[in-house]
C-alpha cells in the first residue's frame, strides 16, 4: 500500500476540529444541519444551470464566513472533483443529443455536456456548504445534533461509537503495522505481502469484534438497557430562526423562479 494512501486511511485525529472560531460557530448546530439540508435539496433538484451556479456562489460565501482553512478545503474538494472529472468526460458520450464534436467516431452530445456541468456545479456547491456549515462541527456534536433532530437512535449510536472507536482501531492498526515493520516487512507485489496484509486486516476485525464484546459487557455492568443519554448545551436563538427562514426563502425563490421545470 502506498504511503500516502495508508496515511489518509488511518490519520484520524479523533474529533479534533482544527478550525478557527467564526461567525458560523455562533449558530446552533441544529440550525446549521437543517439549513444545509434545505440548501442541498434546493440545489440538487434544479433543472437549470443558473441555480446551481448561484448555489456555488452562496457556498463560497458560507466558506468565507466559516473562515475555512484554504489548503485543507481545497484538498477535500479535489478529492471529490476527481470523480466529477471522470463523469464530465464520460457523460457527453453516453447521453444522446445534438453532436458537438466527435472523438474516434463517438459523438459528444451538447445535452450530455450541459448535464455534466450541472452535476459538477451542484456537487461542488453542496460539498462546500457541507464543509462550511456541518464540517466545522465536532463529530460528537454532530451526533448530538442528529439525536436532537430525531434521527433514529440506532444511527446516532453508530455515529457516536464510530467516532469514539475509530481512533482506538486505527491505533491498533498502526501498532500491528509497526510490529510488521520492526520485523523487516517491506510491502512488495508478491504472495507473502498480500497474505500478510490479509492477516493484518483479519486480525484487526477479530480484535475489533472482541473489543466490541468487552465494551458491551462494560455497558451491561453499568446497567445499560438499550438507551444512551446525551448531555448537550444547545440553545436555539433568534439568529438560528433567521438562518432557517432565509434558507427557506431561498428554496421558495428557487421554486417560484421555475428552476424545477424542465
Amino acid at each position, binding site marked *: 500500500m502506498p504511503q500516502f494512501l495508508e496515511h489518509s486511511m488511518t490519520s484520524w485525529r*479523533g474529533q479534533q476540529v482544527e478550525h478557527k472560531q467564526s461567525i458560523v460557530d455562533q449558530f446552533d448546530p441544529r440550525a446549521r444541519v437543517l439549513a444545509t439540508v434545505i440548501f442541498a435539496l434546493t440545489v440538487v433538484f434544479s433543472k437549470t444551470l443558473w441555480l446551481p451556479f448561484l448555489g456555488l456562489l452562496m457556498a463560497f460565501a458560507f466558506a468565507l464566513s466559516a473562515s475555512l482553512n484554504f489548503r485543507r478545503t481545497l484538498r477535500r474538494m479535489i478529492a471529490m472533483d476527481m470523480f466529477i472529472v471522470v463523469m464530465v468526460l464520460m457523460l457527453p458520450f453516453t447521453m444522446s443529443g445534438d453532436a458537438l464534436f466527435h472523438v474516434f467516431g463517438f459523438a459528444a452530445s451538447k445535452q450530455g455536456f450541459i448535464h455534466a456541468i450541472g452535476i459538477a456545479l451542484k456537487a461542488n456547491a453542496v460539498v462546500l456548504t457541507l464543509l462550511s456549515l456541518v464540517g466545522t462541527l465536532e463529530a*460528537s456534536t454532530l451526533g448530538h445534533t442528529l439525536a436532537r433532530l430525531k434521527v433514529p437512535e440506532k444511527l446516532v449510536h453508530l455515529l457516536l*461509537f464510530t*467516532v469514539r472507536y475509530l481512533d482506538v482501531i486505527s491505533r491498533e492498526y498502526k501498532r500491528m503495522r509497526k510490529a510488521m515493520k520492526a520485523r523487516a516487512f517491506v510491502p512488495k507485489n508478491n504472495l507473502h505481502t498480500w497474505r500478510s496484509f490479509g492477516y493484518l486486516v483479519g486480525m484487526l476485525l477479530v480484535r475489533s469484534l472482541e473489543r466490541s464484546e*468487552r465494551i458491551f459487557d462494560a455497558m*451491561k455492568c453499568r446497567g445499560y438497557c438499550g438507551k444512551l443519554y446525551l*448531555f448537550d448545551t444547545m440553545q436555539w436563538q433568534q439568529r438560528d430562526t433567521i438562518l432557517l427562514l432565509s434558507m427557506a426563502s431561498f428554496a421558495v425563490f428557487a421554486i417560484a423562479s421555475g428552476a424545477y421545470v424542465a
Partner: protein
Amino acid sequence: MTALIRMDQVSYSYPVRGMVLDQVDMSLFAGEKISLEGGNGAGKTTLLNILVGLNKPKSGGVFAFGRERKVETDFIEVRAKAGFLFQDPDDQLFCPTVLEDVAFGPLNQGKSPDEARQISIEVLDCLGMAGFEDRVTHQLSGGEKRLITLASVLAMKPEVLLLDEPSNALDKAARLRLIEVLQSLPQAMIIISHESTFLDALVTRRTRLERGKVLDL
C-alpha cells in the same frame, strides 16, 4: 456475618483453554480488600466475570447481596451494587465526553439528568478530577482514563468494587494517586494485580488462583 459475594463450588471451562475454575469457593466480606493473583490465563478475569454474570458457570452457584443469582435479570442488581473496573479503560469509556460517561450508570439507575450530572460532578471532584467534565474521553492520558473509569463505576454508589489490573500501564505518579484513592474508599474490593508493592499498600487478605483453585496466601 454473611458474605457480600460468595462463590460456591463454581467450575468454568473454555473450549480450547480447558478448565480454568475447578469447584472454586470464595467469599468477600464487608470491609475486606482481597487480592487475586495468578499467572496469565489462570482465569482471574473469568472469575470476576462470573461474579457479575457476564460468564455463566458450568456448575456451582453465585450468591450476592443476600440471595442466589442465576439468570441475567438476577445480575442486573448485582452489577449495580458491584462496580467492575475493566482491564482496558478504552473498553469502558465509550461516551464522547467524560460527563456523559460518568453519568451513564446513574442514568441507567433511573436518576434524572440533573441528578446524574450532580452525582457525576461530585464523584469527579472526590477523585480530584474536577473540571474534566467536558473533556473528550479518547484524548485523556492513561492515568486520567483510569481515574475516570473509576469515577464512572463509583457514580453508581456500589457496595463492592471488582478491579481488574487497575494499576496496569500506569506511571509511578498515577499509581500512587490510584493507591491513595483506593485506600480512601470504604467499599469491599477484589483486586486482580501482579504488583506486590501495589497490593501491599491496599489489601487485607491475599489469594491466588492456581490450577483452577483459589488458595489463601
